[in-house]
């Protein structure tokens, strides 16, 4: 089977891999919207969506009812609704940018997946990461592409040509830039640690995971334990960058109706929605790789040890699938965490967002960077 795969032309291989990843990301993003409704219901003590059903599927004993209770059919109903609903275009909008904005939202969110390694398999003793491309500039490339996502919000807000979307667009542009700085600075200690002096510099995310699966107490510790402040700043900035509550200033439905997507409906609105969840999935993936040990099952237990322990080390395909499952479980937990925070913490006021970004988070991340500069310079040789 592996021989057959390797005999395919590289372009076809890349296309198939890309389609496979999209086939995972899209349903995950869709299921995210459903999960959000269920999680919010549980947190607020409601049952959530549990009525929608396909007539003959629900007749399957036990399973059909369980799926109905979980609201899985509601997901299907929502999806169909977005396809078949009338898609109104208000008369006062700038049509070109109005149609462009949802595409601009989705493209960067899906493009960033290219540079995210999401699993690994064992080739003898070496761990080979699985991903669409092993980009040497890893995280920098992801930051570069995802920073283009803000134009979707700005364009949507501006093209809508009415007051509330416009305010949403203005807020988006200011907020994204404010938190991008702290986000970039907060990951620098991780890469300082990973790139010890004398080595060839690399920002590859697979390398970061490799450093979290070394033997020994310090080698096996995930970076969330050794660099908790970095992880916290990155997580907060991630909330702001993915436009999630308590930072969802651009759409803030309490004071801006729907913010940048007020004038959007049906399918175009759904694309914004999918883009937000895709962004969240990729962001959670990056957090997992940087701070939660990537595809290593537990702190101090690397993938290689784990697969030797349960006796699958000889089978690269199974190891690959297990590593991807471990990685996805961590990502799903983080997405749950995103929702947990959303339905627990009230939204900030806009000035609070700005004060938090510029006056608290940025100085904290710079101080944190200097602290780790000194610590790494003093300690790295000895550990």
């Amino acid at each position, binding site marked *: 089977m592996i021989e057959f795969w390797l005999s395919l032309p590289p372009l076809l291989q890349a296309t198939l891999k890309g389609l496979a990843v999209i086939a995972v990301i899209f349903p995950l993003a869709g299921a995210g919207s459903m999960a959000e409704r269920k999680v919010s219901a549980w947190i607020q003590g409601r049952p959530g969506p549990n009525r929608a059903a396909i007539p003959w599927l629900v007749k399957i004993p036990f399973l059909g009812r369980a799926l109905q209770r979980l609201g899985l059919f509601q997901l299907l109903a929502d999806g169909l609704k977005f396809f078949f609903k009338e898609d109104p275009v208000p008369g006062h909008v700038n049509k070109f940018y109005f149609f462009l904005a949802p595409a601009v939202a989705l493209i960067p969110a899906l493009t960033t997946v290219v540079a995210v390694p999401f699993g690994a398999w064992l080739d003898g003793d070496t761990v080979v990461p699985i991903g669409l491309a092993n980009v040497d500039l890893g995280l920098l490339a992801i*930051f*570069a592409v995802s920073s283009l996502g803000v134009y979707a919000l700005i364009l949507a807000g*501006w093209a809508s040509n009415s007051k509330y979307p416009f305010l949403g667009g203005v807020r988006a542009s*200011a907020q994204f*830039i404010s938190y991008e700085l702290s986000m970039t600075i907060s990951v620098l200690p991780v890469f300082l640690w990973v790139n010890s002096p004398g080595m060839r510099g690399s920002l590859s995310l697979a390398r970061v995971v490799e450093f979290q699966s070394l033997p020994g107490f310090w080698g096996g510790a995930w970076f969330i334990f050794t660099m908790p402040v970095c992880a916290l700043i990155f997580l907060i900035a991630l909330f702001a960058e993915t436009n999630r509550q308590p930072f969802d200033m651009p759409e803030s439905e309490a004071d801006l109706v729907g913010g940048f997507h007020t004038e959007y409906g049906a399918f175009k609105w759904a694309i914004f929605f999918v883009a937000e969840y895709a962004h969240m999935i990729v962001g959670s993936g990056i957090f997992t790789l940087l701070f939660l040990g990537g595809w290593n099952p537990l702190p101090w237990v690397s993938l290689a040890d784990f697969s030797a322990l349960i006796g699958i080390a000889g089978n690269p395909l199974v190891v690959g699938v297990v590593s991807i499952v471990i990685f996805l479980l961590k990502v799903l937990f983080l997405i749950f965490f995103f929702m947990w925070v959303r339905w627990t913490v009230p939204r900030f006021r806009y000035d609070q967002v700005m004060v938090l970004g510029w006056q608290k988070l940025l100085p904290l991340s710079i101080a944190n960077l200097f602290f780790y500069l000194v610590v790494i310079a003093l300690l790295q040789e000895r550990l």
Partner: protein
Amino acid sequence: MLDTLFTVFATFALLFALGAVLSPNAINAALCFLLCLVSVAGIFVLLEAYLLAVLLVLVYAGAVVALFLFIIMLLDLKQVSAWKFRGISALAGVVGAGLLVAGVLAVATRGQLDSLPAAMIPALGADLKAYAHALFTTYLLPVQVMGFLLLAAMLGVIVLSKKFIAQGEAPAASPALDSQPATQAAQK
């Protein structure tokens, strides 16, 4: 293949650069500038200067143009009225354009660009370590001068945007509101 891609990116870069200069709508101009930057990043990729391409997209396309749009939208510029050159501003324009042409000519005729071996150019722009090393050794002075220039620009923005109040007058409420975006722009 590479030649075709270069032609495509170069054409896009020139067209969008023209669009950025000629478009009467400020938002259109800013977006043309954005696409121009992305095309130039594409040319960098063709030169195998991946780091430069990524940095260009991250810093300029991702952040600086977003700030431009923020300011344009904040001021709500619908149509930009043509700027009239007169007196000192015309002189400054001529001097600036002259310096730019002289600089480009100097680099093109006897600068270091063609004296570098062709194999070294991608290595500097492609690899993080080589780039940082060059930045902090060979080009340390230009980097420091640029940093100083940016500092001067930032102070200038603060001085221009903050309304200094003469002693004895009551402080006005507006300066804090006005100066915030401008100082953010400068900090960037």
